[in-house]
């Protein structure tokens, strides 16, 4: 396997994730898109770690997984909160404050 295959995969995932963040209205989907980006990062890290024969990349990836879980947890909580007050999880509707 070549390193660039992983990097390419990661880049594609990253782009899909970004696309998702920028286009999805559904808050949960946005969070999932971000998860995609984080996984792209993880692939990068693991691949580079292997490439460099360094454990650091994998450790980093583990940390990211753990932190991502916390992030999504909090994120979902907030989305739920929004849903409870607005009966909608369309993030584009939240524009009370602007300017």
């Amino acid at each position, binding site marked *: 396997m070549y390193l660039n295959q992983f990097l390419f995969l990661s880049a594609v995932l990253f782009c899909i994730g970004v696309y998702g*963040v920028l*286009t999805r209205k559904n808050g949960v989907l946005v969070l999932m898109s971000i998860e995609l980006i984080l996984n792209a990062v993880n692939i990068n890290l693991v691949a580079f770690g292997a490439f460099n024969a360094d454990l650091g990349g994998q450790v980093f990836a583990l940390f990211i997984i753990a932190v991502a879980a916390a992030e999504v947890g909090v994120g979902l909580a907030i989305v739920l909160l929004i849903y409870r007050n607005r009966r909608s999880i369309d*993030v584009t509707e939240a*524009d009370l404050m602007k300017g």
Partner: protein
Amino acid sequence: MLSLFAADAVSAPAIFDWVWLIPAIMAGSFLTILLGSKRLKVPAHFIGIPAVIACLVLALVTAFSWIGYSSDVAHSGEVKSEESFGGTAETAGAPVPGFVDAGAPTVACVESKHGDDYDDDGDHDAFGAGELAFSGELELAVEEGEGGGGTPCPVINDVTWFSNGGDPEDGGSDITVGTLVDGQSVMLLVVVTFISTLVHIYSTDYVNGDRRYTHYFAFLSLFTASMLFMVLSSSTIQLIVGWELVGVCSFALIGHWWEEKPNSDAALKAFLTNRVGDIGLLIGMIILYFAAGKTFDITTINTMAVSGEISQNTLLVAGLCLMAAVMSKSGQFVLHTWLPDAMAGPTPVSALIHAATMVVAGVYLIGRLYAVFFIGFGISGGTLNAMALVGGITCVGAGLLAFVQADIKKVLAYSTVSQLGYMVLALGVGAYTAGMFHLFTHAIFKACLFLGAGSVSHACHHSFDMKADMGGLRKFMPKTFWTFVIASGALAGIPPLAGFWSKDEILVGAGVWAGTDGNGTFTLPFIFGMMAAAMTAGYMTRVIWLTFFGDYRGHGVPHESGPRITTPLIILAVGSVFAGFLNMPKPFVEKIGLPSSWGLWFEHQVEPAGIGSFPAIDHGKPSFSLAIVATLLGLGAAFLVWNYYKALYAKDHKATEVTDGLMSKIPLLKAGHTMLTEKYYLDHLYTGAIAGGTKGPLARAAYWFNQNVLDKTVDTAGKTAVATGRFVYKYIDQGAIDGAVNASGASASGGGQVLRRLQTGRVRQYATLMFGAAALMAAVFIVAI
């Protein structure tokens, strides 16, 4: 310093060290009146009159001391001068290097001055009082000297007021004040205190009951003090100070009745016109300051001018600048317009300030810095120069204007302008003594005329309108009449009254008439002078007729004024008769069998001939034929006018002007007459230019003037300035400059408004912006780096 001179040198009388007391007394009088009069419940004149009399006494003592001193010097000098002619300088008593003009026994008057500057802290007390009380360092340099040529040097008492820019050696300069006593200043000292005394006395009656009686006397005192301060100046900066102070007093007194706008307008006009001239004064003095090696000292400047250390070009430029000051202060064309307006002030003030003293300050200035003018304008051997020309034009131009005035004071005002022109003309042709002498005699008879006019108006319910409110007054007020006639005669140059002598000498000085040999041949000024001589007699005859002859045209019954008014008139009239005898030509004196020393007595006292600070001038030789011709011209003009009015009277007892005479028939004459009544359109010109550059025909300008400006005679330059000011303020200041500032603020604010639209409130767009910017920047940097 004394040791520089021979052992038998004549020492200057002690009084010369104390002349500073004279202005100081008047300043004290001013302060006392201002602060104390009301509180002490003392009428203001109780303070003012004793003060001014004390000054008069001191001035007279000074004058007699000067006479004695100068004759002592002349006496001791005569002996020496004969020896010194042989070239033995050591016996001349002043073996001072430099400045010795070949042939002429010139005495340097300044060399000893800065020879040894010393701090004299012990002498504080000498100047511990009055306005010369300065704390800190006091440098006292007493300089006394006398020349071998028979004329004493000016006696200067200087204190160093302060130093600026370091010590003199390091390129700094000492600024000194002090007194300079010489013939010219002593003469003015006497004139000012004398006229001032009479005016004080006169005023107690004239302004009796005025609501600002105290204030009036206070300013009279202040004026006298300032005038004396200026007269005694030893440095140009002191002269400037005095010059401005008399201007302010003039301002305050012209505007004495400031409740009425025309009065305050006149005051403003006077002050502002003088300010215009002051530009020249300041610049001229500055040029001289640097040219003479950073000094304001008048004697030094004169000496350096004479010795050629200052180039003639510099002197010319400085002289021209100073001429501007002379033109404004002494009412020369074209800056004379303020002087007739200044008649808005109380009449005694007009007599004192606007006839006898302040207005001659310009003439005095020329005399004070005569070396500068004489050499700068190249008077010696000249035919025409700026000064003589200005003087000539003024004396004729103003004389013409005097013919068309209805207001008696205005006639006198224009006459004053004309006579001041005469004096300037005299100095312009190099007739120094004649100019000064005319100043002297004119002060006396013109003061008499003004006070007489005041007396007349006192009788005629405070009107000055000869045509409407006067006529036939000789029967009601004989004293006023006779004094007025005598003074008019003196003014018109009728022998043997005062004006005759002084005027004659001026005409002689022009050096045109055969055998007079002046400094040059000043043909044009001479013609002007002759014309003015004729005109003077003419318009004074007109005044006398309109005022004292014919029928009384006013209302009520006029009465003679009280003794406090008539006494000064009589004193001045006597003076008008006799003042001229002070400077009779020598040939005449010899011919009538008087001692020779009576001839040119005034000249001997006043003219500092032969000293290093005075230029070598030539004197014209008197001519009987010229005197006769000039007198005949005057008498002829008077005769014509007299007959004109007599004929008029025969037709209509109340008439004052011919309504269908030649004036109205011949267009040219009519235009000329209009020209005169409109005062040569000078006021129109100034104001017209301001108000929008009206360039229409003269008549339209006149009409416009009559309609719009007559009751709004704001100072001429003022209005342009105001208009310009408005324009600049509105469009440049508030428009462009301020606008730019405000606009940049507005655009910042507008930019903020636009940028706010970025903040849509939609999180998706935020994310897009964030990632878009990130991607864009990454792309740019990757490509660029």
